[in-house]
């Protein structure tokens, strides 16, 4: 019997701000622009929203703040924070709330001025002191991901060049995306020879720090045909968690994607071969290699070679991060919702020069914390439901 959430809900609105530097604007103003864009895209207003899903690093009462700011009267609200994967997990929470009738129009929204906002009122707020970890100065999150990369190189012989090819593949996609921040050509040598941050990562192995916002509107599928744009249906979703502090991650070369993704595939009733396009939270170059392995697109340890072959770059057979990803498109502190946004554009056929022809099924993988939480969501066009 099909899972009750398979195909039960759909994204009918998408809003994106410009990416890059948005000076003299607050994170709420950026979020509001994205939310307004998503609601307008769906032919709705804030007065239609009764489910609100938001999060950032700075504001413990963000759901209340956002409801007040936007003038939303919610019956369901959620500002859970499991790191940058949060907004993909919000898709699950919204689907549950919609499917059970607790709300009828769910808004998932994010905005940040991580680049230009300084410390005040944006997403680079205090992360909270992690006992037994922060005192050592691991420069989190970079240091934790760097140690995952170092371990992967040690166990499997993954090379400096293979890590770099993740970044150059993302850059090649970004060159096709007019919204992407970093569109200049970049070589493997450029990445390898850039300023070292945490060995083996140079600054070009690390995601951008941007201003920007995104929002999506979800409804039950039974009414998804009543909106202007073609609906993008949620087919399956799975959450997996391994740890908070990096020292508690059982194996630094295996992420919780290995736990959550099988649940998403089972719910969606599809196999890996059915996926047309994938959007990963590529906070650092090692992420993409780990996720390809943990999704089963290659054996553990072979992700570096797979990327180096050109598989995920434009023209490859496994297109990944077609917007340019967090490495080259945009990364405003938390990137999860931008994976969903790109999946929506691909499945609507709105992805312009980077469109994957005939894309019917897209996979998003949100990553949170220090490889801590992973949320895999599978979306499909109306034909796949």
């Amino acid at each position: 019997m099909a899972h009750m959430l398979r195909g039960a809900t759909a994204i009918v609105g998408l809003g994106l701000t410009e990416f890059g530097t948005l000076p003299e604007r607050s994170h709420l103003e950026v979020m509001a622009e994205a939310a307004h864009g998503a609601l307008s895209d769906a032919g709705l207003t804030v007065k239609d929203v009764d489910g609100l899903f938001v999060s950032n690093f700075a504001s413990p009462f963000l759901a209340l703040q956002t409801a007040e700011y936007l003038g939303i009267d919610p019956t369901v609200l959620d500002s859970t924070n499991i790191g940058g994967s949060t907004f993909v997990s919000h898709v699950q929470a919204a689907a549950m709330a919609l499917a059970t009738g607790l709300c009828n129009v769910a808004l998932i929204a994010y905005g940040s001025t991580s680049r230009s906002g300084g410390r005040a009122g944006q997403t680079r707020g205090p992360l909270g002191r992690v006992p037994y970890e922060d005192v050592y100065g691991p420069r989190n999150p970079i240091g934790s991901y760097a140690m995952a990369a170092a371990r992967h190189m040690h166990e499997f012989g993954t090379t400096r060049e293979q890590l770099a090819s993740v970044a150059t593949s993302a850059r090649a996609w970004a060159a096709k995306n007019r919204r992407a921040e970093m569109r200049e050509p970049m070589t493997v040598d450029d990445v390898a020879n850039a300023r070292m941050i945490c060995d083996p990562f140079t600054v070009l192995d690390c995601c951008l720090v941007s201003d920007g916002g995104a929002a999506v509107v979800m409804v039950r599928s039974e009414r998804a045909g009543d909106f202007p744009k073609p609906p993008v249906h949620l087919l399956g979703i799975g959450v997996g968690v391994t740890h908070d502090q990096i020292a508690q991650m059982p194996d630094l070369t295996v992420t919780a994607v290995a736990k959550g993704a099988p649940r998403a595939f089972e719910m969606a009733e599809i196999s890996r071969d059915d996926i047309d396009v994938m959007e990963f939270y590529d906070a650092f170059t090692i992420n993409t290699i780990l996720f390809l392995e943990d999704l089963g697109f290659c054996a553990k340890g072979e992700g570096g070679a797979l990327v180096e072959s050109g598989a995920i770059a434009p023209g490859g057979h496994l297109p990944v991060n077609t917007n340019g990803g967090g490495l080259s498109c945009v990364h405003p502190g938390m990137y999860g919702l931008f994976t969903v946004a790109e999946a929506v554009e691909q499945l609507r056929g709105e992805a312009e020069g980077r469109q994957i022809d005939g894309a019917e099924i897209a996979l998003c993988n949100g990553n949170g914390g220090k490889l801590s939480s992973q949320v895999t969501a599978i979306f499909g066009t109306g034909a796949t439901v």
Partner: protein
Amino acid sequence: MSDNRTFDSPGPDAIYRAALESGTFQIQQCGSCGAHIFYPRAICPACGSTDLGWVTASGKGTVYSTTVVRQKPERGGDYNICLVDLEEGPRLISRVVDTPPDEVRIGQPVEAFIGELDEEKVVLFRLAEAG
């Protein structure tokens, strides 16, 4: 260790820190399943028991992964960050010191000592003596 009450005052975190202040690196061991535990907990993460006692850590471990946090000399210079697998089983984050930070290697044996960072007593490591 069966009379240890992890919900009493002082709690496991305070007990661990007091021991560290007095110069002892202690970890917990579960009286029910035998697992060694670090960092200090009130409930065994392996089996759910609250029957947790204290043992002095051997301090012997192996580098599981390592990185160098790069930093300008005027801000203190580069330093090592690593994950160490203690011979009792638990893994912890720390630094290997008294060795150039980029010469620390995965698999090297290390030994713990109690040092200070930011005026706080912490467990640090040095490369173990050869042989």
